[in-house]
């Protein structure tokens, strides 16, 4: 039995060391960027800032978060995320409810039409040409409408509706209630947790979306946070290969870049406790399909 105990001990050391190493390698990129965002510029460019800040100051962060362009991009992102999430939740629930009634004629084929789009799509260019034709280029609608319904999310809500007891709806129907009344007055109030989960799925999707704004937004005044951040990150990075004199003027200093990355991460950090809780639920609902 003695060797078993030593074996257990070695195993535990291995487990804890590997997990701590993984945790640290997740944290290191954050720590080094955070340190640069609060260090003096000379210390950064001379390569003195590694893991810990040198010459602590908060001016760079303050400059970044009070910068008008940053605040404007932040506002656009908040607007798109809030309006997009609400619109997506309402339309997704409105679609999921009828589709949860398999006995209704036509429902089966509509579900197939939705599911098919998870496997096959027209691709980037036809979607771009459509948005162009709808005159949605440089319109915030182009960031919301193409992703209004996520079929995956719709199927999760649908299977939740299917799991609710029929008796609720039947008694309401006997009282003469219409289906939309039942959906908005009875079903949705009972669906708090699943709507919260799916709402967060949508919110994170809209918030983090880089692809759609990159395709459809050219105007500086409509750029959401991700696009603004990408300009800053990549402008600085491209410095090493091609750079016009004009670009030189616009290249943000290392510290500003780091501070912008940190400032853009903060909104997600603030809601992270909710995200973790509800996202895990959502992933598990999705995997144990209804």
């Amino acid at each position: 039995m003695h060797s078993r105990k030593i074996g257990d001990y070695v195993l535990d050391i291995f487990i804890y060391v590997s997990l701590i190493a993984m945790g640290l390698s997740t944290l290191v990129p954050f720590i080094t960027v955070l340190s640069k965002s609060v260090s003096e510029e000379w210390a950064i460019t001379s390569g003195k800032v590694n893991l810990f800040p040198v010459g602590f100051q908060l001016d760079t962060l303050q400059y970044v978060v009070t910068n008008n362009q940053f605040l404007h991009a932040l506002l656009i992102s908040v607007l798109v995320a809030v309006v997009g999430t609400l619109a997506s939740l309402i339309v997704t629930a409105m679609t999921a409810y009828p589709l949860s009634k398999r006995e209704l004629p036509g429902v089966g084929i509509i579900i197939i039409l939705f599911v098919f789009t998870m496997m096959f799509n027209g691709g980037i260019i036809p979607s771009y040409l459509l948005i162009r034709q709808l005159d949605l280029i440089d319109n915030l609608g182009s960031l919301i409408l193409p992703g209004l319904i996520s079929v995956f999310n719709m199927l999760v809500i649908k299977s939740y509706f299917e799991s609710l007891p029929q008796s609720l709806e039947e008694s309401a129907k006997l009282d003469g209630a219409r289906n939309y009344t039942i959906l908005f007055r009875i079903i949705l109030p009972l669906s708090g947790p699943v709507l919260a989960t799916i709402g967060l799925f949508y919110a994170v999707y809209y918030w983090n979306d880089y692809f759609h704004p990159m395709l459809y937004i050219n105007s500086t005044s409509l750029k959401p946070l991700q696009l603004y951040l990408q300009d800053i990150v990549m402008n600085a990075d491209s410095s090493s290969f091609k750079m016009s004199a004009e670009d030189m003027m616009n290249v943000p200093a290392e510290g500003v870049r780091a501070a912008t990355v940190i400032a853009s991460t903060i909104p997600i950090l603030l809601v992270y406790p909710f995200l973790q809780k509800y996202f895990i639920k959502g992933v598990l609902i999705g995997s144990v399909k209804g």
Partner: protein
Amino acid sequence: MIKSSRWKLARSNWDMYVLLIPGLIFLLLFKYTPMYGVVIAFQEFNIFSGIGGSEWVGLEQFQKLVRSEDFFQVLTNTLLISMYKIVLLFPVPIVVALLLNEVRKMLFKRTIQTIIYLPHFLSWVIISGLFVTLLAPTDGLVNQIIMAFGGEPISFLQDNSFFRSVVVFTAGWKEIGWNAIIFIAAIAGIDQEQYEAASIDGAGRIRKMMSITLPGIMPTIVLMFILRIGSLLEAGTEQILTMYNPLVYETGDVIGTYVYRMGLGQQDYSFSTAVGLFNSVVGFILIISGNMLSKKFLKRSIW
């Protein structure tokens, strides 16, 4: 008789169909219209003439595609990056789940989980920002370490011999923790009595891990693997778009980014749509085959 009762059901629930209207408009306009739009892959599409007025050229775009050296480079890059991601990254979350399952100190376990799930919620732009700083040629932490050991600094994001590694590593950094969740849940679902019986038989922890836990989550592993193969041609378009630059097109340009560059950068709409269509069709075949495999071996459909 049956038909008329279904008709009655539909009529008495007419408002259900009203509820469906916004969803159906979305489906037709934003999903099926672009699918119809792929016909421009068989045209020499002119944006001013539209689909109706553009010249039909049959398979000319696809012949151009097969002859194009770019396309083969891009396809090779896509497959290489995707396969590196599968081979190197797919097993890691399983190991992480197995390790976390052995941790008895709950506070430690929860702390590690909280840390390693975080990157999943960050956009690729933020992550590329983090790594551009970490890997910066002179003042980045990694190059500081390399130089401290007497090495030459490396421009990881501008060097064709490192770019793919950076793409694979950062993808792992972002998603490994999160991808462990599904396996952690599968482990939690294993019948505890099996472990008790094994303990009575004198099995050690590694033995139990190998003979109970791993076989117990094998169906989940196989299912996740099949799903993963289904997205073989998606090497990480959004990720690469936020990280790459012309210096690393040679190794980093994948189908998704190439379609974007050809279509929107060079306005070669028909050719890039043809490339996109190739991508969609192969992707579709992979997903359908995956589903057939899943039905055959796991007795369940992916949907």
